[in-house]
């Protein structure tokens, strides 16, 4: 993991999307709002609002994976699905010693350079 506190660089963010026409929130962004049919233009980004997806969340389920893919030089990693207070859900890393379904956690975003290629943004639930 890269410690961004050491550098004067932009902190990584993962964005949620809100349809300006009906207010429905999404993660990830759809091309068309499933509630009102409003279209999203990924180029102009008009008529859809973005917001940072992080903060308090509840752990819905989790696992500890022991057969990690190539690139992860760790014995195991824990993953989970959480639900945010706004109702959106996300998958990501769980970094608590004893995960339990229903646990209240806080989601933050980090950058991972574990796999080859450009670093990617990941959710970390602590």
């Amino acid at each position, binding site marked *: 993991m890269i410690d961004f506190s050491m550098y004067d660089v932009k902190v990584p963010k993962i964005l949620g999307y809100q349809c300006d026409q009906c207010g429905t929130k999404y993660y990830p962004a759809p091309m068309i709002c499933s509630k009102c049919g409003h279209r999203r233009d990924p180029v102009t980004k008009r008529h859809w609002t973005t917001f940072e997806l992080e903060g308090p969340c509840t752990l819905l389920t989790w696992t500890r994976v022991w057969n990690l893919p190539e690139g992860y030089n760790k014995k195991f990693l824990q993953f*989970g699905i959480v639900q945010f207070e706004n109702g959106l859900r996300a998958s990501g890393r769980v970094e608590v010693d004893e995960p339990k379904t229903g646990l209240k956690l806080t989601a933050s975003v980090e950058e*991972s350079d574990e796999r080859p290629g450009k670093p990617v943004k990941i959710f970390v639930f602590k």
Partner: protein
Amino acid sequence: MAVRVGIVGIGHTRFGNSSEYDLADVLAYAATDALQDAGFLEHRKEVDQVFVANMASGLFCHQSAVASAMVSRLDMEPVPAELVENGPASGASAVKLGYMAVASGMADVVLVVGGEIMRKVSGWNATDIVSTMLDTDTEYAMGLTLPGFGGMFTRLYMEKYGLTERDLALLAVKNHDNGAKNKYAHIQATCTIDAIADGPEADVVNNYIAEPLRMYSTCPVSDGAAAVLLVNMDSPKAKRFAKRPVRVAGVASATDTHCVHNRADPLQLTAVRIAAEKAYKMAGLTPKDISFAELHDAFSILELAISEEVGFFDRGKSFLAVRKGETALGGRLPINTSGGLKSKGHPVGATGVSQVVELVRQLRGEAETGRQVKDPKYGMSVNFGGFGNNVVAVICAKD
């Protein structure tokens, strides 16, 4: 009246490690078996269409355009050939497209071949390649894998319905019992409940892969291919084949959210339910009519969850039926008579075709001694793509 589509030829390589062979050869081997089985090998240039199912030859073997390669290997030019890719459901998708080609009147004879060589790369690399079917930014980038989703799904099921790790081990024992008798299975060996669940060494023998899923609740990484020859049963050509057709009574597919976290109830496999309902409707059948089934147990939990979604059991009750032996050979509804993905193996592009081959073997009465279902009439297969985001159900009938 709609055209009746039947299967007159089947072929299958032994699943396992074929990494020293070329993918086109492995596909062509199964295809040759199917053409020979149908008595149509010498007439192979009269096949109207070839569909080759494969998930990721570009990544596993650094090889593309495998449909062209296979047709050439079989000396079948100029027969039209296309590749079908639908993740681990590529095989049954190709069967579905073959059915559609015949039913539409565009073709009378269609060869469908599914295959994958996964073991040319390391196990870690194979896990990574299979994971590319997940949502790129919200799942794959996080480091998630298919076993990871299998583990999270299993935990939800356990917490809601009281399933135990021992119940999952019972499924492994059942499927290895079946696979041990299947000449095409990757792992032709039995296992005991003592070795993988009850005994003092069980924790070591049956270690965790993605908690609470253990090794014996997870399919192996396999190579192999399977093939079927589909024909228009109402065409004069139908009389030219050596084998009596097994009718494809129903075939249907459905999709669900690509991101697993976006499902309203993550324990519901909606695409499985819809695909099965459509297949039943097409066949004019209900779950009670099915004699046996091949269900996509890439993780043992999926055999349970799929068996509930297709209507064989009430929600949360399937593992109770497994405890009573209802899904074993000789039980009320045998499931995964081939050994399933757990024992037979799971070359991702081959699996959907392989499941249909098993339906045909059972309906013809050609399964090995000790593995044959008694007088089956209807067999059903469910081929599960992604983590349930693209699913194909097939029902075959012995008329």
